[in-house]
């Protein structure tokens, strides 16, 4: 296998559909199809999408308690044992994310529980596993939140270790962990700006803000920066070119969860198949669009991704 995905803080995602959700009352759910449990977390999702594209990967993560064990069993069962896994177990429980979808009132209520605390020795063992797995892969995707007990500088360390092992790095993170990762000069950076549009201390509003932020990241060593811009578009900057990848027309968006992870899987698909960055970005965007068209984390395989390619157009940004 050529790809390693790292999720320091995986989550067991529970989605429950409730009509007319009301605080302070008991809601009894009788239809089992209205509850869904699935393993989640950025890297885990990327591995799931890569599997849909026929690319083997190893998902490395930290799990804990009975929730962690359930997570691993679901990984095996839900994905038919196709994704390689390597987990370090800690005592505290793996976090759970509870999402309540009320289709009648068209609301989504999310409760994200805390993750486990990771002690120093467990972290050392985890990093040892990480280095050992790096020796076997060509691409490493790092992303998501960081559990308590681990320094926010960890992504910087991980990128440096991957570079030392000649492994291409893709970072998909936000906030301080992202800033530290950028300092290490990962190959590809896809800042997660869903929660906050502040990157490296600067707020992003206009296209010029995005372009200059991407260039700042390039100056620190990245080979490509990908920003989601105004929902439908992606701004992609390399030292050689700057393009807006735009979606033509309108689609009926059914799902916006995990589309960033689908994007990275498509990108890795392109790179793994020898495509250049420009072409690989098209695969990434197509995978994300294909994911938006389906109810759950599903891009419909390579066919689904290829079908979405025709919805993309590119526009050079002069800067």
């Amino acid at each position, binding site marked *: 296998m050529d790809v390693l995905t790292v999720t320091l803080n995986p989550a067991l995602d529970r989605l429950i559909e409730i009509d007319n959700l009301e605080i302070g009352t008991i809601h009894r759910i009788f239809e089992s199809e209205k509850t869904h449990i699935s393993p989640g977390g950025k890297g885990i999702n990327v591995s799931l999408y890569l599997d849909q594209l026929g690319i083997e990967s190893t998902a490395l993560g930290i799990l804990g308690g009975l929730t962690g064990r359930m997570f691993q069993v679901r990984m*095996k069962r839900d994905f038919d044992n196709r994704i390689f896994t390597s987990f370090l177990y800690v005592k505290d429980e793996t976090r759970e994310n509870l999402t309540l979808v009320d289709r009648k009132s068209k609301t989504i209520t999310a409760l994200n529980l805390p993750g486990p605390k990771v002690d120093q020795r467990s972290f050392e063992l985890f990093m040892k596993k990480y280095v050992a*797995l790096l020796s*076997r892969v060509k691409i490493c995707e790092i992303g998501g939140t960081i559990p308590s007990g681990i320094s926010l500088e960890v992504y910087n360390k991980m990128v440096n270790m991957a570079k030392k092992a000649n492994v291409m790095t893709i970072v998909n993170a936000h906030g301080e962990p992202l800033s530290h990762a950028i300092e290490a000069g990962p190959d590809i950076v896809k800042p997660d700006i869903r929660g906050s549009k502040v990157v490296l201390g600067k707020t992003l509003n206009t296209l010029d803000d995005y372009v200059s932020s991407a260039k700042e990241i390039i100056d620190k060593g990245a080979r490509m920066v990908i920003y989601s811009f105004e929902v439908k578009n992606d701004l992609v900057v390399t030292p050689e070119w700057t393009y807006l990848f735009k979606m033509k027309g309108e689609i009926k968006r059914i799902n916006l969860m995990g589309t960033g992870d689908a994007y990275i899987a498509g990108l890795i698909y392109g790179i793994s198949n020898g495509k250049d960055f420009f072409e690989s970005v098209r695969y990434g965007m197509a995978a994300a669009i294909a994911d938006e068209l389906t109810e759950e984390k599903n891009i419909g395989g390579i066919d689904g991704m290829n079908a979405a390619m025709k919805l993309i157009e590119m526009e050079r940004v002069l800067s």
Partner: protein
Amino acid sequence: MKVKDFMERDVTAVFSDETVEEFIHACVHQFRSGLPVVDSEMRVVGVMTESDVMHAIIPSYMEMLHSTSFIPDTNITKKRLEEIKNKHISQYMRENVEALKTTDTLLSAATLIIKKSHRFLPVVDEDGHLAGIVTRALILEALLI
């Protein structure tokens, strides 16, 4: 059917310089009776099981006794575990363990695991890197298909 078709694709393992105590916790947390031991490049260098720890802490004459009811307490065993818990598992693991290859057949896996009374066996790829594990239950489940 080949081993790669029914093995568990979990490459969770321990390193030979982890301690016996860390190994015990790893087994308990993961509901495993043992784990593959790998080097810094994920090559399988041995296997460590709960039995290896038990053998190291229970006096050898106990195996010959038909009943342990007259043994006054478990202090000796507890003391022995206390003595070894911070030692590296390299001292207790079994090296040169036969590993299955991803291309081995279901029948050869079943034969090896039963013949040698293993509860599980590591699976390696063509370069000797850990690729997964096979347990007795996985073999039986594969035979059901």
